[in-house]
């Protein structure tokens, strides 16, 4: 099917999909071999000011991470695809994410990359992710969400799409790292993510809590 063929059936299909996903119990949470499992999520799609959807995912090395284990900390989620040119640019020299994770990670702040790319799609393979992590000196884990459940629960659309969860477990920010998708930082440059983290660190309400994401589409299972 051509990429841009818009038919009535597609419109109807989209209308049906447009409702926020409510994820049901996952029978095998924490017990199965599947890398990605939602963690008894009853939350609707992530919404700023509301409790962030909980999750339990394995990282590239097989270690399990749950949102619950980071309660009391600020958690930064970065939707990640190491082969997306926007991600490559953001993590490359002078990119907005080049050093940010290392800079903000502390005893109070955790940074987690999440790859919701399905098997066989761009940026999914373990070797590509590990190679990128080494090249970009990423010390934080890359979590595997190959079935896309967590990505869809958060409404992650792009790589890099950023979400910040405050110490109380509420979503405080969602959007793009900055307003320069092409990497050109002009006079109207806004460091959205950095500003949001700064507000949280200062104990303030995040002033710009939602911005339009930019980047490659998340390569969910078709």
């Amino acid at each position, binding site marked *: 099917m051509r990429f841009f063929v818009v038919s009535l059936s597609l419109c109807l299909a989209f209308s049906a999909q447009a409702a926020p996903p409510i994820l049901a119990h996952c029978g095998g949470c924490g017990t199965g071999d599947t890398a990605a499992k939602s963690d008894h999520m009853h939350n609707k799609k992530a919404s700023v000011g509301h409790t962030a959807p909980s999750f339990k995912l394995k990282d590239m090395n097989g270690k399990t991470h749950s949102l619950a284990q980071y309660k009391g900390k600020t958690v930064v989620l970065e939707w990640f695809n190491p082969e997306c040119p926007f991600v490559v640019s953001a993590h490359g020299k002078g990119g907005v994410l080049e050093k940010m994770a290392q800079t903000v990670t502390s005893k109070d702040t955790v940074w987690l990359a999440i790859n919701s790319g399905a098997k066989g799609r761009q940026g999914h393979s373990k070797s590509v992710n590990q190679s990128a992590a080494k090249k970009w000196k990423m010390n934080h884990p890359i979590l595997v969400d190959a079935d896309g459940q967590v990505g869809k629960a958060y409404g992650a*659309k792009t790589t890099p799409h950023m979400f910040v969860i405050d110490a109380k477990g509420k979503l405080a920010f969602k959007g793009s790292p900055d307003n320069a998708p092409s990497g050109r930082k002009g006079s109207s440059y806004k460091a959205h993510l950095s500003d949001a983290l700064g507000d949280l660190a200062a104990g303030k309400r995040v002033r710009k809590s939602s911005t339009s*994401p930019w980047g490659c589409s*998340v390569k969910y299972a078709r």
Partner: protein
Amino acid sequence: MPVVKPVAQPAIAPSKPERKLVSMATRWAAVEPGKRAQIVVELEPIKGWHIYWLNPGDSGLPTSFEVTQNGEPTDHRVRMPTPKRSVSAGSIVSYGFEGSTLFFVEPTALQAEQDLELEAVWLACAETCVKGSKKVRMAAFSKSQSAPEASDLRAWNQLPGLRPTRWSQTSKGLVFEAPAGSTVTLYPHTELHRRLDGHALKYCMKNRCELPLKVLVDNTLDQKLWATLSVSAADRLENFETDILKGMNP
């Protein structure tokens, strides 16, 4: 019988030239009677690839243009056709163009006798995405006026025009109604897309669009809420741009 010597093969195969994903052509065309000519920029991604509208949707990058004269950027206006919409896995909405697409670039402060440079920047995507750009030097329009090609005029006439539209406010939201029997499609520009959280499609049905009031509740109300509307009926198709805030009080 002559002996045919085998042709020696190079030890290293020559590297493949970089694949050209998007071709670009430019020309001046006086598409509006009595007005200055405009630059027609024709971009054509190869089959299976697409480039993006001014609001790329949930992902992608807008196709953009820069005009310079003597190395200095000059003001210009860009007109793009109504895009096509696609929805991919994860309800990711994209707005863009496949195949040959004509963009109209109108420099508004040009020194007529001097050449100019025009640069187009795009993101071409299929399963993967590749950034691209091309810069061309063009003669000033006074030196190269030409009659528009039929395809230029056709594309120009199909561009969405500016038109006041009546959006009424109800307890549920902002409502736009096209004539009965027609179908209205809403293509939100970037700010409206953000406020609708990417779900514009679910707010229009048949000849009626009803946007939730939440689009008005925002701390950046100074921004305009532009949308392109496409109203189609059996005997006609009309595309136009509207600022839904002004459209409430045309």
